[in-house]
């Protein structure tokens, strides 16, 4: 028996590696996070915004980068390359090369002086090779030989790219060393080989953008105004080389007419790259919208084959681009790009189907190439070092039912390494891979880590004078372009209790946390105010910083200058500045009155509940059980299996019933899983860690829950005469009766009841294109003479599904596109009329079978939504906490989601998402306790008279009346008092408003803080006595 080791190597520090590392580290595994670049963050840090919510990428990723850096169980190994892996599952030995940075990590402060002084410029990968103008107007790359990778880099350390350094190569220069005050430059550093022992490996190596130079007809690198989407992203970004001004490289002018060319390096069999890169359509739409937001007068064209907006919120985003932003989408492949020698404009030649038919040309100021996702730079490493099986493109091959496992046991894979995908899918998959490693190593949890030692708390007595530190964050340009941060910081300093104020570029950056910690120590600060962005996302970060230095995390307040001031009053700079000062003043008044609070450890029930016994629910239940926690599994129907039972054959040839039987056998044989079929949950009470409910009359208790309630086919009553004639059926009905049906001519109509203009079904159902193609192949393979027509809007066979699309076209299936303006018509006699834009005329088809492709709609979930207080989107699917980075969590603690109840998806996608949800439950249950919210209600027993109004009003049943008998010498007195359950109280404050004797306070939001804050905000400048605390 091999001895297992409780640590995991995660290879790749992009969003996938980051998520997997956090999920493992949070449950007591030691994680070695290995990244070949000098900073973690991967591709996402290069992005300006993320689709479809246009969240600022750095704003949502930044806190995660910091989480990784500060996590005691994560060893961050940046600028390291793994070189060999030996051993076997549970006990591997991994060697890696720690590349010389030529900078001593312990001495470097990340101040950036070396970068400023270094006289040599080199190609700038971070800015995708773009250049910027220097003071004399010359084009310079944005990077020096010695540099910090990017402003928010983690770790924020300089490094020298040795092959271009004059000192290292020729012994001349040495300027950086002379200028480095901390003495961190070390030209003699050498690469080191280091070996670590680990139990499992997670591969998250990701991708590079396809090299557009490989397609010579695009003239990338030759015509200056042909750029890639990644370069355009950097142009849009406020911290990019042009500081967010969109200019074209040839003459620095703002382009007024730009074109995106889709599928560069994807869907192109002629260069042997047939897969669809899955993310570039949305990427281009996002950039198109951003270009419009930067300059509403710019004309934007997108040349595409199909717009693949198949994810949650994508179709709606696409429609917004058309309707709200007036972006022109042209379904055509550009056949030629020429340059106008006079002005460097680009002349595009393409076939136009909508305007004047025939070959047209159009002159553009700038052309942007939507380059695909290319994993091939990792091929050598994956194949030869890890011995993994790869497909022809370089993606790791996985089994559809084991999407997280590779051919090498103990080596798991997630993210783009196993196929092109967007960020939410990557995040869900990364959590899933973490689940697999956690299950493997469950018995050696907590064996490799050191206990977290928090520093001794800084004592803050209520009578101590307030010593407040204030940070006014620039947030790059986000705040500073409207508000004078320096002035606001100076203003804050005028208040007597404010002993420290500064205005950092990014308050959330890792180095600012260090500055803040130092300031707390140096200035003996006992309260902190950060004026930056919304506390809803960023308060936890600053609170942990306080904790790390021993200051109570509740002695903190966040002022929202970005969302509530600079972004919404960007044209009223003077008033915005005043408002910023008012809000900071209010926060000072509030913060002076804050009290330190302690969080209580509350025992939790180390059991889980999974609702829904389909593929996702069974997978989640099995994973949680295998990790060592008992699971209740509830299925509403009489048997397990869900919708998969109704799919005879999947697109990959697997049989639905066989998949179900396999899972079912495992569930039934698992003594750790208690199964309830034909059952529903009732009488839910409690909250995270301590839920209670009743199933089939049996009381159950559980700490966390996964909702895997699934989806079902939409019934298209009223669409295309469905229900009126027996030969008009749905794809599902075709599959159910496949053997009995023998049609000669089949017309399939896509998007029936989906992609509509009004909710609830405005969404693309993701899987129906593949479903129709699967059935067309099955029909053709059974009888090559059958005519199959597929009438579609866009064919959305993303990733390797593109192969099926190609296959059915080779088999002779005919695809005819339709638009919303000219939908196909099914005549009473069964004739189908469709306008073919390629031919420019209406076709009449007389099929003997019409098959409608209908979307998945969520199974009834209203009751559960109300019971667990979790929201649903306008599409009626469950709505996750954050569409990009928290795709499997609900906003409410302890409740997670998986499978098609979240959004339509394929079986393998449900499986990895279910594993991902499982790992969240594992991390919740692992410690065996919860920490209470500190900001809860408190009842002063001396004042309480036991009237019970608070008990009545409390929505969480967190207050109970207790009768106590007090024995006196002469008599026994009974008293009734109300008590708060700290594990259940959420701190809403409803109780205290109702208390007739004001016996109740809510910690952190007591009356005095709110009143002081309001009063201080309302102080007029002329009434303000600067010498007093507001």
């Amino acid at each position: 028996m091999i001895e297992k080791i409780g640590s995991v190597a995660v290879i790749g520090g992009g969003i996938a590696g980051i998520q997997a590392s956090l999920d493992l580290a949070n449950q007591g595994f030691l994680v070695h996070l290995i990244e070949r670049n000098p900073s973690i963050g991967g591709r996402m840090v290069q992005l300006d915004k993320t689709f479809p919510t246009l969240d600022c990428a750095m704003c949502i990723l930044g806190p995660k980068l910091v989480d990784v850096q500060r996590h005691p169980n994560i060893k961050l190994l940046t600028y390291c390359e793994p070189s060999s892996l030996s051993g076997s599952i549970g006990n591997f030995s991994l060697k890696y090369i720690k590349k010389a940075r030529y900078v001593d990590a312990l001495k470097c402060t990340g101040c950036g002086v070396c970068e400023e002084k270094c006289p040599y410029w080199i190609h700038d990968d971070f800015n995708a090779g773009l250049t910027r103008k220097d003071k004399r107007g010359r084009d310079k790359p944005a990077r020096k030989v010695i540099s910090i990778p990017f402003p928010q880099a983690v770790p924020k350390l300089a490094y020298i790219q040795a092959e271009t350094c004059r000192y290292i190569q020729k012994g001349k220069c040495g300027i950086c060393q002379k200028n480095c005050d901390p003495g961190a430059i070390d030209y003699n550093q050498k690469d080191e080989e280091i070996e670590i022992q680990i139990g499992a490996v997670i591969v998250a190596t990701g991708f590079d953008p396809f090299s557009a130079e490989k397609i010579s007809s695009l003239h990338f690198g030759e015509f200056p105004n042909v750029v890639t989407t990644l370069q355009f992203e950097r142009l849009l970004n406020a911290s990019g080389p042009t500081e967010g001004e969109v200019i074209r490289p040839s003459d620095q002018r703002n382009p007024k007419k730009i074109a995106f060319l889709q599928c560069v390096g994807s869907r192109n069999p002629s260069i042997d790259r047939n897969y669809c890169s899955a993310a570039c359509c949305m990427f281009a739409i996002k950039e198109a919208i951003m270009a419009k937001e930067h300059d509403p007068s710019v004309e934007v064209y997108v040349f595409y084959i199909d717009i693949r907006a198949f994810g949650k919120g994508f179709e709606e985003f696409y429609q917004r681009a058309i309707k709200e932003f007036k972006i022109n989408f042209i379904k055509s492949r550009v056949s030629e790009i020429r340059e106008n020698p006079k002005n460097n404009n680009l002349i595009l030649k393409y076939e136009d189907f909508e305007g004047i038919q025939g070959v047209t040309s159009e002159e553009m100021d700038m052309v942007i190439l939507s380059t695909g996702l290319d994993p091939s730079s990792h091929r050598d490493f994956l194949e030869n070092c890890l011995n993994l099986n790869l497909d022809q493109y370089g993606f790791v091959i996985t089994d559809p039912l084991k999407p997280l496992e590779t051919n090498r046991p103990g080596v798991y894979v997630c993210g783009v390494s196993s196929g092109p995908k967007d960020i939410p899918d990557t995040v869900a998959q990364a959590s899933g891979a973490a689940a697999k490693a956690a299950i493997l190593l469950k018995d050696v949890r907590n064996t490799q880590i050191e206990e977290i030692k928090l520093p001794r708390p800084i004592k803050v007595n209520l009578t101590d004078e307030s010593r407040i530190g204030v940070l006014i964050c620039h947030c790059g340009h986000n705040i500073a372009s409207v508000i004078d941060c320096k002035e606001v910081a100076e203003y804050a300093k005028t208040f007597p209790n404010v002993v420290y104020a500064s205005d950092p570029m990014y308050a959330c950056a890792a180095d600012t946390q260090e500055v803040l910690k130092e300031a707390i120590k140096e200035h003996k600060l006992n309260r902190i105010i950060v004026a930056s962005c919304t506390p809803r996302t960023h308060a936890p970060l600053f609170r942990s910083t306080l904790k790390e230095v021993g200051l109570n995390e509740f002695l903190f307040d966040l002022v929202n200058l970005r969302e509530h001031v600079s972004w919404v009053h960007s044209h009223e700079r003077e008033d915005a500045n005043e408002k910023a000062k008012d809000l900071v003043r209010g926060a000072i008044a509030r913060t002076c009155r804050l009290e330190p609070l302690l969080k209580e450890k509350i025992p939790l029930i180390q059991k889980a509940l999974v609702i829904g016994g389909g593929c996702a629910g069974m997978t989640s239940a099995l994973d949680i059980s295998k990790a060592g926690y008992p699971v209740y599994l509830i299925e509403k129907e009489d048997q397990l299996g869900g919708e998969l039972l109704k799919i005879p054959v999947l697109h990959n040839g697997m049989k639905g019933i066989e998949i179900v039987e396999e899972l079912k056998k495992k569930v039934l044989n698992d003594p750790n899983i208690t199964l309830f079929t034909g059952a529903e949950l009732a009488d839910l009470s409690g909250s995270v860690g301590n839920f209670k409910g009743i199933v089939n009359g049996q009381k159950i208790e559980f700490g966390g829950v996964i909702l895997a309630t699934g989806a079902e086919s939409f019934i298209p009553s009223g669409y295309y005469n469905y229900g009126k004639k027996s030969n008009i059926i749905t794809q599902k009905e075709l599959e159910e009766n496949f053997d009995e049906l023998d049609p000669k001519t089949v017309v399939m109509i896509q998007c029936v009841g989906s992609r509509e203009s009004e909710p609830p079904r405005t969404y693309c159902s993701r899987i129906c294109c593949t479903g129709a193609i699967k059935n067309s192949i099955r029909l053709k393979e059974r009888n090559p003479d059958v005519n199959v027509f597929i009438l579609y809007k866009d064919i959305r066979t993303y990733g390797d599904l593109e192969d099926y699309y190609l296959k059915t076209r080779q088999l002779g299936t005919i695809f005819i596109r339709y638009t919303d303006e000219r939908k196909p018509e099914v005549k009473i006699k069964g004739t189908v009329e469709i306008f073919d834009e390629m031919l420019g005329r209406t076709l009449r088809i007389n099929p003997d079978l019409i098959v409608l492709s209908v979307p998945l709609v969520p199974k009834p979930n209203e009751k559960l939504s109300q019971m667990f207080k979790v929201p649903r989107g306008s599409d009626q699917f469950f709505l996750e906490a954050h569409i990009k980075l928290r795709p499997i969590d609900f906003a409410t603690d302890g409740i997670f989601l998986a499978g098609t109840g979240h959004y339509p998806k394929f079986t393998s996608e449900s499986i990895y998402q279910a594993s991902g949800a499982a790992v969240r439950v594992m991390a919740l249950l692992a410690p065996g306790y919860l920490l209470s919210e500190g900001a809860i209600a408190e009842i002063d027993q001396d004042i309480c008279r036991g009237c019970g109004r608070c008990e009545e009003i409390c929505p969480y049943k967190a207050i109970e009346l207790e009768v106590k008998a007090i024995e006196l010498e002469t008599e026994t007195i009974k008293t009734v008092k109300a008590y708060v359950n700290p594990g259940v109280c959420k701190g809403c404050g409803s109780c205290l408003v109702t208390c007739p004797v004001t016996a109740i306070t809510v910690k952190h939001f007591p009356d005095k803080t709110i009143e002081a804050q309001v009063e201080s905000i309302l102080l007029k400048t002329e009434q303000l006595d600067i010498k007093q605390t507001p």
Partner: protein
Amino acid sequence: MTQADINLIENDFKPTIIVFACNWCSYAGADLAGVSRIQYPSNVRIVRVMCSGRVDPAFILKAFLKGADGVIVAGCHPGDCHYLEGNLKAEERINNTIKALKVLGWEASRLRLEWISASEGKRFAQVMAEFTQQIKNLGPIKIGINQR
């Protein structure tokens, strides 16, 4: 005073408006207005509370006494409350407070209860713009300073 003078006063008057916004819906709605860059008047000062049910009528009265020209209490739509029914409690209390304002002889339309969800960034901005206009039309609050 001519109409022009009145207009001038109206235009010059920058009311101060306090918005008590619940953390889960209305504060998030204000965040969304920000993320979507929807502009609204800068007179608005948001005070974050965990639940609209936390807003004590005393806070509102004190705000008026200290010089607020208008107050909005903003919470989740009925049924959406993070704390189940805090918003309904707020509704009852705010309605009573509005009655109290009338009894005191103050303008009841200076206080408003609004339901604004986390996805209604646009509506947040609209409500703020519209309420600001309404308060501008009313002019500066006439209590406060004298009765303080």
